[in-house]
């Protein structure tokens, strides 16, 4: 703090007189390579560890708003030849970023990192056999519930979706003010993850042709399931991540949340009074006894085309590999950003200590590793932003009107296909 205020005035004057200071520096014979990174997570402290050990490559992290905002911003910047050298990107956004010429092919610098990750994860950063990013964290879905309230209301933890629906009905009978959870339309990522569990793959490519399979049987099953619960009135239909949602979680008006392994970090801010009252369980299954789950987000570190153009791709890839595979870096990542690392070695290492908010579940990460084994493969297309954007509008409307969800699903499929056709993509079917 003191350092910063002291330097503020100088920084202000400096940037005014030097005009643009938008990009990083260029590699020169005497100075270090300067890399900038855009990220929504608090990564500067991790980068500082690197900076201390690597005087020749200096990394500055510029913190940004949430995932979607960041994608928008980095695409606009790339169009203008501006932007960072490294960017944090969720898996589903990689094809979009590659298609917009934001990310550089880093196969020659990063190929060696392949065996540090599972095949499914590595596939998501590889397109057309070129590597575009280093995986950072994975986010398998799980079922979070208020242990105390489940006991108090005499509820069983659901292991299948049928049981999940039954529990939702029981809660409404026992206490009409409470709800099991809500169906939220403001993040398509959760819904996409749930359809992965049911077996959907929204995009795939073969040859030079794309296939869009959003409105398929597996997704319709998920959509119908949630739409029926909303229509029946046994779960809420209001969006997540609002003050009202925080209050509902904090007061125990919503007593469960289908979320990803990063949920403890959200609950600590959203429901501060409920420390030690939550528990993570495997995601309910479509058929009893199976162990499949989907993902909600999870991120990677991409190297930009701008970095490649300026001859900084190698340095950037070196840093990205270190950030996501080096034990010291991963331990810091877990501590600072609260992520569940994608590197397989780190998932079983001592870096993962029990989340502070879940003192009642000391083996949290061992259980997470167990359920992560069943993570369904995912693959993404070049306009996930359009699909996700349409999802918010279409499902928001359906949730409010309590109208059938499959119609909304079709709207997402149609808008996605129309956008791709407009841009000249070849599409199967």
């Amino acid at each position: 703090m003191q350092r910063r205020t002291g330097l503020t005035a100088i920084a202000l004057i400096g940037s005014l007189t030097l005009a643009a200071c938008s990009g990083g520096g260029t590699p020169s014979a005497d100075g270090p390579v300067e890399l900038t990174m855009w990220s929504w997570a608090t990564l500067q402290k991790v980068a500082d560890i690197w900076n201390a050990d690597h005087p020749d490559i200096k990394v500055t992290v510029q913190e940004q708003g949430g995932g979607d905002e960041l994608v928008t911003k980095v695409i606009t910047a790339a169009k203008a030849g501006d932007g960072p050298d490294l960017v944090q990107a969720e898996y589903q956004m990689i094809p979009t970023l590659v298609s917009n010429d934001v990310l550089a092919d880093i196969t020659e610098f990063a190929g060696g990192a392949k065996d540090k990750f599972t095949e499914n994860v590595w596939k998501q950063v590889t397109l057309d056999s070129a590597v575009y990013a280093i995986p950072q964290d994975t986010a398998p879905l799980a079922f979070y519930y208020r242990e105390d309230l489940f006991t108090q209301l005499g509820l069983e933890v659901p292991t299948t979706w049928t049981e999940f629906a039954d529990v939702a009905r029981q809660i409404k009978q026992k206490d009409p003010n409470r709800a099991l959870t809500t169906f939220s339309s403001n993040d398509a990522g959760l819904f996409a993850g749930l359809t992965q569990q049911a077996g959907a793959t929204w995009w795939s490519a073969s040859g030079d042709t794309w296939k869009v399979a959003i409105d398929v049987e597996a997704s319709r099953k998920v959509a119908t399931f949630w739409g029926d619960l909303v229509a029946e009135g046994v779960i809420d239909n209001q969006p997540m991540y609002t003050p009202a949602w925080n209050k509902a979680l904090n007061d125990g008006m919503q007593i469960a949340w289908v979320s990803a392994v990063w949920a403890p970090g959200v609950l600590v801010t959203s429901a501060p009074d409920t420390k030690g009252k939550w528990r993570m369980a495997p995601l309910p299954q479509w058929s009893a006894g199976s162990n499949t789950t989907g993902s909600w987000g999870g991120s990677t570190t991409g190297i930009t085309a701008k970095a490649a153009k300026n001859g900084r791709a190698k340095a950037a890839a070196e840093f990205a590999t270190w950030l996501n595979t080096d034990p010291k870096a991963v331990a810091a990542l877990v501590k600072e950003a609260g992520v569940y690392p994608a590197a397989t070695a780190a998932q079983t290492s001592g870096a993962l200590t029990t989340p502070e908010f879940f003192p009642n579940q000391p083996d949290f990460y061992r259980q997470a590793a167990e359920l992560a084994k069943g993570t369904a493969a995912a693959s993404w297309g070049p306009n996930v932003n359009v699909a996700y954007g349409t999802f918010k509008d279409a499902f928001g409307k359906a949730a409010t009107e309590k109208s059938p969800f499959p119609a909304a699903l079709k709207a997402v499929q149609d808008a996605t296909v129309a956008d791709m056709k407009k841009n000249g993509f070849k599409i199967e079917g």
Partner: protein
Amino acid sequence: MSALLVGPRVKPSVSARRTSWLPTFLLLLGAVYCLIPVLWVVMAATKSRSELFSTFTFLPGNGLWTNLSELTAYRDGVYWLWMLNSGLYAGVGALLSAAVSALSGYALAKYSFPGRGVIFTVILAGVLMPPIALAVPQYLLLAKVDLAGSYWSVLLPSILSPYGIYLARVYAAAAVPDEVLEAARVDGARDLRLFTSIAFPMMRPGLVTVFLFQFVAIWNNFLLPYVMLADDETFPVTVGLYSLLQQGASKPALYTLVITGALLSIIPLIALFLGLQRYWRVDLLTGAVKS
């Protein structure tokens, strides 16, 4: 004539002893309506994270100190940098804006020359341009000259204010008598000197008004800095608070910080209002319609 704090213009002949209660009551009702959200943010800023959603909204909480220190600790005090940035963008931007408006307003009011009407109309039509239609091309163009993301990218587009030029023109027409200019001209003064030593001092009060309007406009602007800036150390406070609000799925909005930050960000402008009340000369605007 200042509008904000001029006392009631009551002629002694009209008896002012009896109060009209209905108008007084209606005005106070309006005042209460306008103050409720402000009162709410004051109260909410004192609440801790769990109090924010659990205690009655208009009761103070115990978290003000925690909120302030959390806000200060957030990203090593970046919030205070946002405030400084806002002050810089609004202060320097409004100063330059007032200068450009003074020059243009003076020229438009005191000279007749070919193209005067066209120039004035075209600049005024700028008000009608949707800011969002301008922001994106502005970004792409500034990026081409490597200025996007810099302080300049927010400052430069904020300088030209069609509204400010309009006000300065009206004020120059009203406050600078032609005779004085003619007399100085006869004495051999050149045009630039006429402006700097005669017209400018006469226009100064009106220019303070232009400065204030533009200061508020830039301080409150969101879209332009949002589109232009990427490094959060260059953000003004509006964009900074928005970034706290839009955190994404695995990182929820930091409401207590946003609310405390919102409260603090209003304070400088309120101080500006109270401190420079006599310069809120909106009468310029209305005078213009009559002329």
